[in-house]
């Protein structure tokens, strides 16, 4: 009796979520299929699946006839990867020091980092633009990467992560004669899930960033892929919808791949975080 009741509740929960998944995922399926269709087919409700897998839009996109798509894609990858690596490394190092050491001005610096969480980068877009202009970094990838390297949220996250690491473990490494930097390096394998989870979130957010690249970058070959798509959509180019949607489809690949690969670590890091 109890067993079958559990079965029913599992079944209904799965059914309810499956219904929601269909709503959530339908536009993506539509987008994927539309990449192979002509404009007339795109907006016809049936059939959803393309009649034949015509690669004309993908060829048009990758040949750079409308926008230098492959170039923009690489720009985005470069920016998001470097921003992720820097932000993760910086936040991890600073978080470690704040979790395990006491020193003068610690409180002041901490308050500063918290203030950085409360004032988002988007609100500082304008002064950042003027500042980057003064540093003559405008229209380079660095003008987008550098403002994202100090992540206040990451700093707080890694303090929590390192707090959970027992001190005797570090003392053991010290007794074996490791210097302080070696001790830090020896802790990294222990917090691998946290590192991967933070890097994943950071990468996804950098990949999605729109406002900062929009104001910083201007040369067409320097743009990020989302800016390129925006220009395709906004211009009076009469771009085929199939081509636009093919471009959209490709932007999903890096983040979706990263998520699938890192999913296990991601879940375990979330679990440890929510316990903290």
């Amino acid at each position, binding site marked *: 009796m109890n067993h079958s009741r559990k079965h029913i509740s599992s079944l209904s929960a799965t059914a309810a979520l499956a219904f929601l998944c269909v709503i959530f995922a339908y536009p993506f399926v539509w987008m994927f299929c539309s990449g192979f269709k002509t404009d007339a087919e795109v907006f016809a409700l049936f059939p959803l699946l393309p009649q034949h897998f015509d690669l004309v839009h993908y060829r048009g996109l990758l040949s750079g006839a409308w926008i230098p798509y492959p170039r923009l894609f690489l720009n985005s990858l470069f920016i998001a990867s470097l921003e992720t690596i820097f932000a993760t490394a910086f936040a991890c*190092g600073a978080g470690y020091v704040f979790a395990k050491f006491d020193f003068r001005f610690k409180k002041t610096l901490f308050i500063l980092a918290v203030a950085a969480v409360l004032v988002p980068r988007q609100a500082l877009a304008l002064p950042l633009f003027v500042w980057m202009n003064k540093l003559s970094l405008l229209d380079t990838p660095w003008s987008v990467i550098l403002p994202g390297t100090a992540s206040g949220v990451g700093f707080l996250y890694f303090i929590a992560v390192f707090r959970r690491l027992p001190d005797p473990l570090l003392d053991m490494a010290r007794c074996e004669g490791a210097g302080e930097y070696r001790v830090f390096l020896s802790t990294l394998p222990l917090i691998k899930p946290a590192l991967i989870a933070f890097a994943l979130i950071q990468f996804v957010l950098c990949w999605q960033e729109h406002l900062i690249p929009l*104001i910083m970058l201007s040369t067409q070959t320097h743009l990020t892929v*989302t800016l390129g798509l925006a220009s395709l959509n906004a211009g009076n180019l009469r771009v085929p919808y199939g081509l636009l949607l093919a471009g959209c489809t490709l932007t999903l690949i890096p983040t979706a791949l990263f998520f699938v690969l890192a999913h296990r670590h991601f879940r375990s890091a979330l679990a440890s975080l929510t316990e903290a």
Partner: protein
Amino acid sequence: MSARTKPLPFLLMAPFFAALFVFWLIPVFKGLWLSLQSDELFGDSVFVGLSHYRDLMHDGRFWHALRNTFVYCGMAVILIPPFALALAHLLKHTYRRSRGLIQFCLMMPGLTPPLVLALLYVLVFNGPHGLLNRTFLHPLGLPDIDWIRDPRFIKASLVLLALWRWTGFITLLFLSGLEGIPRSYYDTTRAEGASAWQLFRHVTLPLLRPVTAFVAALLFLDAFALFEGAYVLLGGSGGSLDAGLLLISYSYLTAFTLGSFGSAAAIAFASLPLLMTALWFILSQGRHRKPAAA
């Protein structure tokens, strides 16, 4: 070994704080300075004191954008977490083997650039072929709604967009939180005769408090900084009757369309105290029995 005797690995924290100083603190002061200058972009601007802020007090569009932003932030914070918490409960009861796929489907919008999401929203949900009109209005015999141009529905569209984007991630966060609650808590409370609702009310909710506060702060911050969604849906303007005009878009418009940098900086900075207070309030709600982190 006490904390005091260890040599401080200064180099580990130097890069973070260097970046924070150069790319956060300096822009903050630059922005403040900018907001006290006249509107010329480079070179000839003169010090005008607080006059931009005084002008803002009489600027109807500013108050409008401020109200829109906070209504939108508030709606996102009030609607999304309960929805995601319900989904997390459901997800906990599904068949183990189906979970991966369900999570992936729910996460999908979160992994997509908001610009693409907004585009899909426009193309799939809006218009006479749009799913929103087709599924909700046509069966009831109601006329089509233009979900983007009708000022009454712009904010609803923005909230739906945020819901679509964040539900997956927040559901995962809540699920982790739920799975972190020891079973024995429930067993003990149930043994005392508590109903399912009482279990939820007195065990689950208090233990999820820190996660909930974190989620609320995240949503608030993201909603405040929202730009792409509004930018695509409304083509960079405030939409009809400015119903979708948000602070960040207004600041952007003022700076890059009108070229008034001083005023634009003042718009951003005038709204910061409110944002910081709201976030501080949300985060302080999550701190039960835990002392301040520093």
